[in-house]
């Protein structure tokens, strides 16, 4: 019975799925922010001074990935 419980332990699977899907969204978001920034800079090179604001938006998107990472420690 213990062997059965060990074989059907879905906790590692749950952690993997939670982390994988959780960081997918922020990854796409950061890619899109970077694309938009590079598009803007290539159209108007003077707009490269907005890099600091881009980093703020990156951190806004990144927060959700970090929350997904933190939540895998709560899954028992």
């Amino acid at each position, binding site marked *: 019975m213990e062997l059965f419980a060990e074989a059907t332990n879905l906790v590692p699977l749950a952690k993997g799925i939670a982390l994988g899907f959780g960081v997918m969204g922020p990854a796409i978001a950061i890619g899109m922010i970077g694309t938009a920034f590079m598009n803007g800079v290539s159209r108007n090179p003077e707009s490269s001074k907005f890099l*600091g604001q881009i980093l703020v938006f990156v951190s806004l998107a990144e927060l959700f990935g*970090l929350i997904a*990472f*933190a939540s895998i420690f709560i899954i028992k």
Partner: protein
Amino acid sequence: MNIFRFAAEDGPHIAIAPEYLFSIGGVDITNSILYGWISAVLLLGLFFYLRKSITIQGSKGVARVFDALSEFIIGLMASSLGSREKALRYAPLFVTTFFFIVFNNWMGLLPGVGPALEYNGTPLLRPYTADLNATLAMAFVMIIIVQTLAIRESGIAKHIGHYFQGSMKNPMTYAIGGLEMFGELTRIASLALRLFLNIVIGKILISIFSYLGSSAAPLTALPFTLMELFIGLLQAYIFVVLCISYLAVATSHNHNHEEHA
């Protein structure tokens, strides 16, 4: 070392919460509070020492870095608050916050922090910003101060009125205004969680990679330590920039001029 035993020992020491060390008069002192006190005292000492080398003709030596960073934050505030004199009025709070967060983030990367030094079996030192209680306290204080400054600048009725923008006959105005007021609580949580999670996940990454590298730990942990140096600076910048923009939004309406980005 047996090559087949590679990374086969117990996992690295991972702690999300700070650990209890001792108590003073019924108040529990955790390892992050202890390190926070140490770094606050060191930061105060450093600034009292540097105070002499900052002069009106420009500063000398190490003080030049601190001078440039303070000037950077003040310039940032001037561009989002509208004028330099307004920026200088609020500058001490935000510049202090910036240096406190950077200093705590970087102090956490020093050797000896973590399980290297132990007291009664628990790690003695832990970076102050890798503790949710600390970052929550910082975010709470910042939002309270921003609200207080906004009320002092425009009066309580006008301040509450700036949440309810639009026609007062429209019921949607009340719903959106209520959500905006609730958003202040969300700001506290997001400011605190962002700083805490970035620092604690950086710590976890470093400990995982130094564990995987076993005897080559200094080599494998080095790139992540360098990345953490950058992230520690970036997170302090983002914390301060977000607080400044909250202050700018809360105090901008009484001048009736367009908010420029």
